[in-house]
């Protein structure tokens, strides 16, 4: 019995913490939603217990054994009917009252969520079939940073995420930080939130968008304010020129083979925006939109045969000789 209790506790505890967990709030907005959830859960549980007790008591106490002969339907005395009418009316009134309380509570939380913060850092998120393109907006066009599959934001500062889709409907949802908002072609919508706890969270597409809807995740990294500014400046620097000969030949492989026809690296003659931007690939935490941890082995496996990892992904398999592959991997490792 104890072991089962401990197991249940572990499951429940696990249920309330984690990097992709709506019950582990890391933003002011989500904190108010989580509090409302727990309040509604408690009230709902009490109502459910009351209703269950209400129908179990007569079912157990007054039940007739099936073997008894089914006696004719009896007439209920008027007094009982009147008493029951009062009880049912009271219960209905109670239901209406609880619903109104829920409604008012929801409007309150909703109003706080929808409040437009004054000045907010604008980040544009573009949904593609099965990866995310991230633009850090800046009045000076040369300072705009384009990244993929990772969203960095400062802690304590309001952030506005503009959501645009290039193909089908996706849905941006960071359980720890903010509720989901759909990216619908033909619409530009935006959400506001303020992260108040630094850490790495995981977002995942929440609207069915085709074959690889399951593997379209996004790492969300909340930095303390100064660390974020440093990170952004580092992102603005173009790709560093490779120093050793292996990396240089890797760069040549990158430019001559199919890579540069889909991927762009600022500072190198590769400008195609068909695929994700690889300027700072090496500093990313995951590969293939949150599917693989970013290690050399995984990168090699992903380049040669992506279809076995993410069947249906738009990246083709590349038959490279091992010499070219080694050089390419060496070059890609330099893209910090």
């Amino acid at each position, binding site marked *: 019995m104890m072991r089962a209790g401990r197991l249940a506790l572990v499951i429940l505890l696990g249920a309330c913490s984690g990097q992709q967990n709506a019950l582990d709030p890391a933003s002011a907005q989500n904190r108010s939603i989580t509090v409302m959830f727990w309040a509604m859960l408690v009230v709902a549980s009490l109502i459910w217990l009351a209703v269950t007790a209400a129908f179990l008591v007569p079912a157990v106490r007054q039940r007739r054994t099936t073997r008894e002969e089914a006696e004719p339907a009896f007439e209920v005395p008027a007094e009982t009917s009147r008493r029951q009418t009062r009880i049912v009316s009271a219960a209905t009134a109670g239901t209406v009252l609880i619903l109104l309380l829920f409604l008012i509570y929801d409007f309150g939380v909703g109003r706080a969520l929808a409040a437009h913060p004054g000045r907010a850092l604008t980040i544009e998120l573009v949904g593609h079939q099965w990866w995310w393109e991230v633009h850090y907006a800046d009045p000076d066009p040369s300072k705009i940073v384009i990244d993929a599959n990772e969203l960095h934001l400062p802690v304590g500062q309001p952030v506005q995420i503009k959501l645009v889709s290039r193909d089908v409907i996706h849905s941006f949802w960071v359980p720890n930080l903010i509720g989901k908002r759909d990216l619908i*072609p033909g619409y530009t919508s935006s959400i506001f939130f303020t992260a108040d706890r630094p850490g790495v969270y995981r977002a995942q597409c929440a609207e069915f968008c085709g*074959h690889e809807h399951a593997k379209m995740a996004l790492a969300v990294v909340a930095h303390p304010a100064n660390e974020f500014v440093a990170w952004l400046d580092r992102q603005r620097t173009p790709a560093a020129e490779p120093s050793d000969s292996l990396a240089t030949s890797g760069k040549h492989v990158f430019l001559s083979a*199919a890579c540069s026809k889909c991927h762009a690296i600022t500072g190198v003659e590769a400008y195609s925006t068909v695929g994700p931007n690889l300027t700072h690939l090496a500093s990313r935490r995951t590969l293939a939109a949150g599917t693989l941890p970013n290690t050399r082995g995984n990168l090699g496996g992903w380049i040669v*045969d992506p*279809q076995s990892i993410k069947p249906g992904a*738009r990246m*083709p*398999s590349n038959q490279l000789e091992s010499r070219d592959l080694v050089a390419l991997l060496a070059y890609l490792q330099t893209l910090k």
Partner: protein
Amino acid sequence: MSLRCRNAGLGIRAARSGRLVALAASTVLIVACEREARRFQESPPTAAPTGDPLVVSDLQPGPTVVVSNVEAPYDDNAWAVSEGKSLYNAMNCSGCHFQGGGGIGPPLMDDEWIYGSEPQQIFASIAEGRPNGMPAWKFILSTQQIWEITSYVRSLSSLIPKGARGARDDHMMRKPAEASTPNARPKKSTAPQ
């Protein structure tokens, strides 16, 4: 209840009297299975065509060389043709051929074919490139991708079955959908002067 297409085809036991029906049913099964299959990974990757496809005119020196027409692997696969369309736009083929109407490059939706409209001839045009500016894509695209683009190009002039041709795309209505253009009869054309 195995959903594998191939077993479903073989699973039909032809009763003595119903053999004809079973035969017809299995062909429908095979055809329909093929048309809707999502073939993400080709192992081995679809073979590139062999032999010299570049026969431009009927006049040939020496003994007549029979050009074996290779059956394009994706001509009746709707998903592959739609992948071909997205590649056609991603690789900027529309930059020269526009949406099939032609511009810098020759038009692809009419029935004039300078280098032939057979699958392996179009495959060669894309893979090897052609004079007057057609780049060679075989170093850039995999064989499977080139076959997909070949099937899409053939669908532009309605050379592949209607069921595989694409419907309209979520874009400005530039041209009628490939699926709603009538089937065409290609004819050979001479190289531009």
